[in-house]
């Protein structure tokens, strides 16, 4: 079994990663570091070029996260998914069957969350497994 943590390099994700690493260490679980790399916006034009740019921007961040987990003695793996953050976690949930998801609550506040959607409430709504929301 394994734990999955949603990670995009932001402040909130840093908190979630720290909690996920210590939890995985205590439980003796492996850790999946999940990052959605699909460009926002469903218009198809120049989609791939935009996604390539995002993969290049995210790759060092998630590599650094993997190193942090391994330094803490946790066996970690990073997964980039061609989806938005919620879709990325859903894909990993289906294909890797993690024991638990760890996500940051986000620092954007209620109004922005209501307007633009927030990952944590959506995952609580959609997940088959327990979701740990890190404030």
């Amino acid at each position, binding site marked *: 079994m394994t734990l999955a943590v949603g990670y995009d390099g*932001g402040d909130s994700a840093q908190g979630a990663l720290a909690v996920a690493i210590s939890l995985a260490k205590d439980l003796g679980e492996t850790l999946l570091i999940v990052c959605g*790399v*699909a460009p926002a916006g*469903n218009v*198809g*034009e120049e989609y*791939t070029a935009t996604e390539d740019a995002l993969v290049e921007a995210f790759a060092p961040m998630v590599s650094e996260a993997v190193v942090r987990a391994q330094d803490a003695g946790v066996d970690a793996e990073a*997964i980039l998914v061609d*989806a938005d953050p919620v879709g990325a976690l859903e894909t990993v949930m289906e294909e890797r069957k993690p024991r638990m998801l760890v996500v940051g609550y986000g620092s954007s506040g209620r109004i922005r969350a209501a307007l633009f959607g927030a990952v944590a409430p959506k995952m609580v709504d959609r997940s088959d497994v327990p979701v740990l929301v890190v404030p």
Partner: protein
Amino acid sequence: MGLTVLMADANTAAKEPEVTPGLAANSIGFVDAVSIGLNATSPAYSLAACLGPIVLLVGVAAPGVLLASFVPMLLIASAFLFLNRVDPDCGTTFSWVTRAMGPWFGWMGGWAIAMTGVLVVGSLADVGVRFTLLMFGLDDLASNDVFVMGLAVVLILVMTWICVVGTELSGRIQTVFTLIQVVALLIFIGVALYKGVSGQGLPGAVTLSLDWLNPFAQGTAALTAGLLLGVFAYWGWESAVNLNEETTDSSSTPGRAAILSTVILLVTYLGTAIAVLMLVGPTFLADNADQEEMVFALIADEALTGFGWIVLLAVAMSAIASTQTTIIPASRTALSMARRTAIPAYFGQVSTKHRTPAVSTWWVAIIAIVWYVGVRFISENALFDSLTALSLLIAFYYALTGFACAIYYRKLLTKSVKGFVLIGVGPVFGGILLVWLLVMSVISMSNPANSYGGISWFGLGPPLVIGIFLFALGAIFMIIMRVANTPFWKERPTVVDPALVPASDGGTAS
């Protein structure tokens, strides 16, 4: 959703990420598929922006001109379809033309596509603001240029911010918006036709004649200008044929959806043009020519009296929603050019927080605002001049795409009749039509007497001056990048890989 396993441990972290091909993105149904092409074309806005000027230019031949403009559009859409098939959603004109015809043509194509996106934003915001004000009965404010300009600039900034933070109207909401637009236009057409037929039209109204469908009926220099605006009216329609396997039932849905959206588009365009002629006639438009896009609002009130707001709402929604479908592709083309080192890498920066090309998106807004405010100040027929200049750029990059399609596929063209017609002859003929249109318009516009208000800049029609200015600006920028000698200039033309093309089109794929 595609799953990409990046790295198993830190030792492989530095390696280039491996990208396994993803499954189809969000699957869409038939109604959504129909609405995508319509949404990208923005029928209500296009009619509000173009119909007045077209009728003014060609009179009762307006329906015929709109019909004729669709022919090159249809042929070029075929090029988009086949290029997209071998290079699925990798890019548009910039990527394709570079691959088929080399960096010089590719650069100018990319410049044209990005500039059209940038320059239309001001017009969209202007129309969106004016029609919203008119809808609420604030007619005085709607004709106050400074007030409208201020609000339009705010609107551009807000819409850009929305694009930067990456939120987007869901496909479902866009579908609803599109349906509202079409229904509003159909109501307008129905009522206006009824009033026209029953003799309730204005004194200048004309009686329906088959001649209206003949674009050459008026046979003047105005024809090419009218056709050029017609191309602008259909701009974006190619996305209706670009759906491919994304739809839920890929064997028949895209084809049927593309056909239905085309029929709807032609019915609303021709229907509205005919209805306007039967209700108010060309003289009314000529008398109110100084109102530019507001003419459509006057006609809507004339047709639906107390319910004119339905059409105003449709136009406002269409214009405001279109800012997104215009800003996003323009910023992504800039990003794509930056990644291939065709323009400085600065423009290729992305925001990992929002997953958007943030830098190029803000630049789209900055240039759009400078352009919009500048043209409003120096031009008396700002909207018309901008749209005509834009149409020159659109015709240029559409023609380039048509030629690129045949060139890229050249080794496969003689392998099947279908391929020869749809991939070779069709797109090339469409390209030639557009080049002819471009040349005729340039000749016509070089005589200011043929311009919208007979105004002359440097002895030329204003739209031509704007067009030349934009091309010259692009050329200067291109030469600077060429002198910088970035890797982009070492890219060489290639041909399509036969393994990506189905056997029925001359390829070797099963």
